[in-house]
Structure formats: structure tokens, C-alpha cells
């Protein structure tokens, strides 16, 4: 029983991490109807920023997530201006393919500059620390911090979207771009902002991750796919939906990985997605 609880706890903590990675993608997808294939590579870049700050200047990831978040925010805005803005209104496929090219570009620049080796910060403040819960339950502190950060950012995003003026403008743009423009909203700026916020969310996740996860150029690919699955499973543009989907994915991954075999955990996750869309093509919380 204790083992089971431990696996569930780990799964949920991992699910919170997926939620934090997914939230940015969900926002971009919901507002701009674009799949950003380079989402995982933004995460990887944020991890490298945090890693190098830690390695060269001994800044702990607990602080350097701020730098990572800002860095990826700026990167996203630049990517929007240079690439994505030219693809708005074109067939959905073009943005996906262009960002696929971008993901290839970013991945290989990092491969070229930083080598394919795994890089891990060895002396972070929270690295390896745990909290003992009861008799047999162990809570890994770095993962817990990420889960808390994820919760805070999701709440902030939700609040921002539903009760600020800019949030309303974003929602208006998502509903009807032309009408929003007639109301005096600069939709191009809104799109750039949404793309930037989406990047910042994943940037913060990436900034915190080097506390326990090694960095390498391929680290983002799997996160991209999992984020796609979470968004699609949660239902189009629904923040709560993608949060729950991310928790479900984390849980399934942990349970299957522990009780069946680690190699099957992603088979189970992707299989679950196929089953869900077979029953509800619009996702768990889609209309």
C-alpha cells in the first residue's frame, strides 16, 4: 500500500510538471489555433540557461528560473515576429511545419554548441533533499517545488485570463479576431503577448528542472509530445482540462512504469490518448 501511495504521489508530482509545460501550449493553441512544435525545445533552452547560470556563476535554479522565464519570453516574442506572425491565417499545417523546422534548428544549435552529453548541476540547494511524510512516504523536494510553482502559475494565468483587461482582450481575440480588431484591440500585439506568455510558462518550468533533471539537446522532444497529448486530451483551449489531463498522464505514466515495465509507460500514455479521443473526439472537457 505504501508503495502504491508513493507511486501515485510521484505520478501526481510529475503530472504537475507536465501541467506547467502544457499550460503555455494550451494558451497558444486556444488563442491562436497554432501548434508550436518547438515548445519542448523552448523548455530545453530554458534548462540550458538555468544550467549555465548554475555552472558558471553558481546561481541556484531556485533563482535562475526568473532569468530562464524572461529569456524564453523574449525568444518566443522574437520567434512570433519572425516566423509565426507570417503564418497566421494560413492553413493550420504551415505553422506546425515551420515550428518543426524551428525545433530542428534549436535542437541542433544546442547539439553543436553544448555537445550531446547529459549535463547535471551537482550542487543545487535542494538537489536530492526529501521530506519524510509519515512512515514510508517520501516527497522529493525539487519535484514538490516545481509542483507548487506549477499550481501558482496556473492560478495566476487563470486569474490573468479571466479578470484583467488584457486577459479579456486575449479572450476576445480568441473568439473572433476581426471583431476584436474592430473594438480597437491590436490583435497582432495580443498574439505576440500570448506566444510570449506561453514561452515564459515553459521557460519557468525549464528553469527549475535542472534541480533534478540532466540537460541534453533531446530533452524537449518527449515533453513536446506529452504537452500535445495533454492539450488535445484536455479539450481545446481549456486550462482546467489540460491541467487534469496532465495529472492523468503523470499518474498513468508512474503506475504503468512501476507495475508493468518502464518501457511501456509512454505506450500506455499515448494509448490512453487514443482511447480517450475514440470516445470523446473533442477531448475530456471539450465541447
Amino acid at each position, binding site marked *: 500500500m505504501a508503495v502504491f501511495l508513493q507511486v501515485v504521489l510521484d505520478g501526481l508530482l510529475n503530472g504537475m510538471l507536465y501541467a506547467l509545460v502544457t499550460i503555455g501550449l494550451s494558451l497558444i493553441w486556444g488563442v491562436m489555433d497554432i501548434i508550436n512544435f518547438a515548445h519542448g525545445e523552448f523548455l530545453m533552452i530554458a534548462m540550458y540557461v538555468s544550467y549555465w547560470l548554475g555552472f558558471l556563476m553558481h546561481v541556484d535554479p531556485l533563482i535562475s528560473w526568473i532569468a530562464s522565464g524572461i529569456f524564453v519570453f523574449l525568444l518566443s516574442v522574437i520567434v512570433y515576429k519572425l516566423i509565426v506572425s507570417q503564418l497566421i491565417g494560413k492553413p493550420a499545417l504551415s505553422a506546425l511545419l515551420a515550428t*518543426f523546422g524551428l525545433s530542428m534548428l534549436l535542437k*541542433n544549435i544546442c547539439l*553543436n554548441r553544448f555537445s550531446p552529453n547529459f549535463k547535471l548541476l551537482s550542487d543545487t540547494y535542494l538537489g536530492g533533499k526529501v521530506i519524510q511524510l509519515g512512515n514510508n512516504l517520501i516527497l522529493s523536494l525539487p519535484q514538490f517545488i516545481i509542483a507548487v510553482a506549477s499550481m501558482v502559475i496556473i492560478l495566476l494565468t487563470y486569474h490573468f485570463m479571466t479578470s484583467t483587461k488584457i486577459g479579456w482582450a486575449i479572450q476576445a481575440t480568441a473568439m473572433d479576431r476581426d471583431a476584436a480588431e474592430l473594438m480597437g484591440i491590436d490583435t497582432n500585439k495580443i498574439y505576440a503577448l500570448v506566444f510570449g506568455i506561453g514561452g515564459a510558462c515553459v521557460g519557468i518550468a525549464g528553469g527549475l528542472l535542472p534541480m533534478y533533471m540532466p540537460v541534453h539537446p533531446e530533452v524537449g522532444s518527449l515533453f513536446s509530445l506529452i504537452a500535445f497529448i495533454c492539450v488535445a486530451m484536455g479539450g481545446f483551449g481549456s486550462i482546467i482540462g489540460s491541467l487534469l489531463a496532465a495529472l492523468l498522464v503523470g499518474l498513468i505514466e508512474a503506475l504503468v512504469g512501476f507495475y508493468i515495465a518502464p518501457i511501456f509507460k509512454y505506450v500506455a500514455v499515448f*494509448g490512453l490518448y487514443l482511447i480517450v*479521443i475514440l470516445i470523446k473526439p473533442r477531448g475530456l472537457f471539450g465541447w
Partner: protein
Amino acid sequence: MGRSRRDRCLWYVMLIVLALLPLIPGPLQGPFAQHVLVSILLFACMSQAWNILGGYCGQVSFGHSVFFGIGAYGTGMAVVTYGLAPWPGVIAGAFLAMIVAIAMSYPCFRLKGHYFAIATFAIVEIFNRLFMVWDWVGGAMGLDYPIIEEGWKNFMWFQSKTQYYYGAFILFLIIFSFVRWMEANKLGYYMKAVRDGQEAAESLGVNSTSVKLTAIAISAFLAALCGAFFVQYNLRVDPPMVMSLDMSMRFVLITILGGLGTLWGPLLGAAILIPLQEYTRAIWGGLGGGVDLIIFGILIIVIVIRQPKGIMGFISWLASRSKAAKGGDE
């Protein structure tokens, strides 16, 4: 439904040029140049197989590397595991790919746009990971070909690549003739009708489900044939080589670059992308890695932004302009 004389001329001239290409002395000789030629034909075929579903029928799938991989594994297992000639494996792989395609189309065809794309990503990942741990198909180690007698019986040559080129040319003939026939046939019109407006097509009595199923079945069958060629050419196969998103993406990108839903698009796209990829790899691939793919990535972005209709779109724009200029003169 007759074709114009120009169309027919272009087709036969193209076939003759392709048939004679390896015989031309000069820069096209030598193993590397011939490798590039074989790869161009192979990827043109593969992209054309994708084009049947993605271009003509409008269902943009990123899962075709699964069919490609099943074809490759079918053939590879016939030779490596059972010590047979590749041919029974080719047939088995192609039919198996068709069955898998029909099975997976059941959940996927109810989805639209991004949802369809993501479902096909998921299928590629599932197959990739299952094949990685499945010992019967060689697991993560993959299948390595033994050295056996070369010739058409085993579809294997070690001395020269010319025979591989003609093998690829036969594949090209099969797939491109089929698509050419399909374009002028009822099936092709049905597919385009489903692509351009499913509801409208259905209201005119087209059974869109059966059209889409036919398209994916044919597409998967032909993709598996290409996979069979790929494994015979590389003499080894492992899951990341064939069943990966990168592979799927390559088929899509070549078709998009050449022109979606056109007969010549895949060949044009492959004729540009493949040499570019092979030569950048040959020049920069060894230096710390990644430079070839950096260039490739930039190229993809530029193409998608600048030329979304592909080269065929550019050609038809030129043609319509010259026609308009002529019309103005009269």
C-alpha cells in the same frame, strides 16, 4: 477524361530521362552521386505514397513512418529471421501495413485538423516504443542483414548501386503510374471532392468514409513497398531508423515543398531536398554534428513561409502569367 498531348509527352520524356540517368558519364557516376539518385527516387516514391492520402484526399497524416517501418520490418524479417528471399516479406509487410492503416483510421478519421495530426504522432510513438522492446522483431538492436548472394533474387548488391537505382525506378513506375491513373479516374475525383468539402461531396452521393479508407489503404500499401526497398538498400533496420516522427516529417516536407496534391510535386521536392540534405551532411556532418540539420531547419522555415504551395504552385503561377501575357498580345 483524356489527357492533353503535352501531359503525355512530359510523362514519357521524364521516364526516359530517369531511365537513362545512371548511364550518363560525368558527375552522376560514382557511389555517392548514385546514392543521392537512389535516395531521390526512394523519397519521391514515399512522398507520393503519402501524397495520395495527404495531398489528394486532404488527410494530413504524420503516421506514415509506421507503414514504412512495417514494410521494412516485414522484408527484413523474411531475410534475417527466416532466411528467405525478401519477396514474401515484401508482400506480407505491405498487406500488414494496409491492415494496420485501416485499423488506425477508425479512431483517427473522426478527428479534424490538429487533433488528427496529434493522434498520428501518438501512433508513431506507440509503434516506435513497442518495436524497441519486441524481441521477435529484433528490439532496439534492430535487424542486421547477413551477406548473401547478390542479384535480383535477393534484391541485394554490393559492388554497384546501379541495380538499386533500377529497383527504385521500378518502384517509381509502379507508384507514379498508379497516381497518374488515379488522377484521371473516378477515385481521384472522389478524393479531391472529399478534400475540398466533405459535406458537399457526401450530399452528391460520395461515400466519404469508404473513399478515405481506400486512400489510406493504398497509401499504406505503397508506403510499405518503399519501406521494403529502404531496408534492402540499407541492409539493416532498427526502430528509430524507420518509425520516427522525423521520418514521417520528411515525407510531408518533401511533398509540401514540391506541391501538395500534384503528380510531380513529390519528385520535384525530393530532387531538391534530398541532395541538399545529403550534401550538407557530407560536407558538415562530421564537424561536431548538427550543422547539416541546422541548415535543413532554416530551409524548412523559409520554404513554409515563402512558398506554401510548393514548386508546382510557383510553376503554375509562371504558366498562368505567360498565358495571360500571350492573351494580351492577341
